[in-house]
């Protein structure tokens, strides 16, 4: 029995924590909100130098050849500092899918560039006023010789203005699920990109319009018309990492509440002495630790191809998503008036929690996935 990150993983976390502290933690996100993209890109280089973007890329493509558990410190720490970017989609979706299903050409083309930090990939799935259901994917890719001709609109694309490549879910056939494919599309001027206002302003969302865009057919990931099942596989990796990212945010939220409750005095004593505050922070801590245990295990199941991986990952995701909103909300209340100001970070965590709440599916959707995975 050894249920803990190993020493290397904890050491890597310390490096990262120190690095992100040194660059001002949430300052990067705050500047990003104000429009400072370059500041983020500098940090991105820094993280690349630390090896963050090569963790789970195999050695032959310039990576470190590590696995999901080794991503945990990285995602917890960027969750903690609310770092912008598309690390989730790049490292925990594109990379595992390319490693598992990419052609040699695709791997050679993309993996080294991801590892070196020069390319960032995001996922384009949702369409305007549609749900995440497979029958609501209308964006089409028609085969024309060696090309796919793409028409349609994708919306709420995460990091739409910093991603270089999209993995697009497109309709290539009639069948509801077995008529969908995943295609790697490099960004170009031909794609009309509109930024969308998001309640979490550190997430830049975009709407993408494709008007007869031609893409070489060898940009399809895995077999054509098998995109939906590949997507399901990719969602396991993505949600395991997302649960860690949310744990990172919750960790900071609990820390903020705890620190503030120790120093803020009212009625002649630190407010952390009042059980209304103390016990609430304890409840936040309980949820944090539970979410953390679930996310560790979720990532462990990926690394070990465990039978219960779908149940483990999706329950980790939906638990963390709900708990994150609760603790980010309580954090504001515990801070009182100052928690309601823009100046203090409290609201940034709440907005991020809300952003993740329904990202790629609701908590109810993922609970239903848990039920199905358990053969209920």
């Amino acid at each position: 029995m050894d249920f803990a990150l190993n020493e290397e993983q904890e050491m890597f976390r310390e490096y990262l924590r120190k690095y992100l502290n040194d660059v001002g933690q949430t300052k990067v996100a705050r500047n990003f909100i104000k429009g400072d993209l370059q500041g983020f890109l500098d940090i991105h280089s820094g993280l690349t130098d630390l090896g963050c973007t090569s963790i789970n890329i195999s050695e032959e493509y310039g990576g470190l050849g590590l696995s999901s558990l080794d991503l945990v410190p990285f995602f917890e720490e960027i969750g903690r500092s609310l770092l912008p970017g598309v690390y989730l989609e790049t490292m925990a979706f594109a990379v595992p899918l390319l490693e598992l299903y990419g052609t040699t050409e695709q791997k050679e083309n993309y993996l080294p560039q991801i590892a070196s930090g020069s390319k960032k990939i995001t996922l384009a799935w949702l369409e305007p006023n549609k749900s995440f259901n497979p029958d609501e994917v209308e964006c089409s890719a028609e085969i024309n010789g060696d090309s796919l001709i793409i028409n349609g609109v994708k919306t709420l694309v995460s990091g739409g203005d910093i991603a270089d490549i999209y993995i697009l879910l497109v309709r290539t056939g009639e069948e509801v699920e077995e008529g969908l494919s995943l295609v790697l599309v490099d960004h170009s001027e031909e794609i009309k990109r509109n930024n969308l206002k998001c309640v979490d302003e550190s997430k830049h969302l975009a709407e993408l319009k494709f008007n007869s865009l031609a893409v070489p057919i060898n940009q399809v990931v895995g077999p054509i018309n098998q995109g939906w099942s590949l997507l399901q596989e990719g969602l396991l990796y993505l949600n395991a990492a997302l649960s860690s990212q949310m744990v990172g945010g919750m960790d900071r939220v609990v820390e903020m509440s705890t620190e503030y409750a120790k120093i803020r005095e009212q009625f002649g004593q630190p407010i952390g002495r009042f059980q209304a505050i103390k016990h609430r922070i304890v409840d936040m801590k309980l949820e944090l630790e539970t979410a953390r245990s679930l996310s560790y295990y979720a990532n462990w199941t990926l690394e070990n191809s465990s039978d219960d991986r779908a149940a483990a990952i999706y329950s980790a995701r939906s638990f963390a998503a709900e708990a994150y909103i609760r603790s980010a909300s309580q954090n504001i209340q515990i801070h009182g008036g100052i928690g309601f100001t823009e100046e203090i970070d409290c609201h940034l965590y709440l907005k991020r929690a809300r952003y993740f709440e329904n990202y790629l599916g609701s908590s109810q959707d993922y609970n239903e996935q848990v039920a199905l995975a358990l053969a209920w």
Partner: protein
Amino acid sequence: MEFTISKKEEAFREELKTWLSENLPYGWMEGKREIPTTKEEYSKFLRDWQRTLYEGGWAGIAWPKEYGGRNATIMEEIIYHQEMVRVKAPPLINYIGIHMVGPTLIRSGSEQQKQKYIQNILTGEEVWCQGYSEPNAGSDLSAIQTNATKDGDCWIINGQKVWTSYGHLADRCFLLARTNNHPEKKHKGITAFLLDMKQSGVETKPILQMDGNQEFNELYLTDAIAHDADIIGEVDEGWKVMIELMLHERVGIGAELFSLEMRFNEMVEIAKEHHVNEKPLLEDRFVRQKMAEFYARYRGSLLNYYRNLTNTLKKGHPGPESSIDKLLVSELNKEMASFMITIQGHHGVLWKENAPVDTVWQDEFLASFGQTIGGGTSEVQRNTIGERVLGLPKDRGR
């Protein structure tokens, strides 16, 4: 038990309705409810609106007739708030003047103070703000440190206030300052000043809120000056004046409740119209169940309010039960707004002009955090209810 309203009250409502339809800013009733955003235009717009109210006889309706009010009953005040919520009327820029400072002046002000202030409160010519909270005195108001030192017939005031609503627009401030130190009884030795905001010793700095608004200010007092004549009540007895001032809020949380009711109804409409997976949200069993629960809770809160109001009508003044209304409404409001975001799915994170349904829910959700903190946090309300309604022992250190 009686919910119907009298003919006189009905006539009052009709009169107000008619007046509103004729006097609201142009296009307001039709949904064009835009208030300019620059400080000067914003201030002018709202002052104009209050002037319009005043001229129509709809400012300070609860005030005695001799001071320009119409001696409205509590029920008429309720109706007034209901109608203002119904038409989503512009905010009352001098809310603090009309609902709190004015009535306090009428009851406890000197003749000179009445002469000087009353009329200008009603017309909106002089806008008032409150100077209570300080960085180190939030829930614990008695811990204020802003200091007033006597110098001849002047008082030299130094310190910092926060959460001063309309502070940047206000002409006058109802300010609490420490004039005496009682180490044991912290609420002793506080004096209430009617401070002139238009002086060099007073600076305001807007506070940017998490919802993007700037409704509150920090107020810096650096050798600001008040005179003996600006003291309301006795020196060192400002705490009493503040308590009195709060008791003038006879109808309590009414307006917030009527807003909650309106928002609930809007929520039902959205849940009927908004489709997910080609089904109206309201046909989703989870949504129906949760909305039925909200129905019970908002109705229950409203009925609680009516029950407390019945007591107020019988006794003539509100009791500590008003904390129940405040706590229920602010918490429920937060939960409802949160739920509305949840059920919109991922599109629910889109904001402002990109929001799929009325963006009010995102803003409402963010703003709702202010309501469980401002005007006494939910924790303070729970203490009040526990101690004053249930008679449980007081917290140590208070």
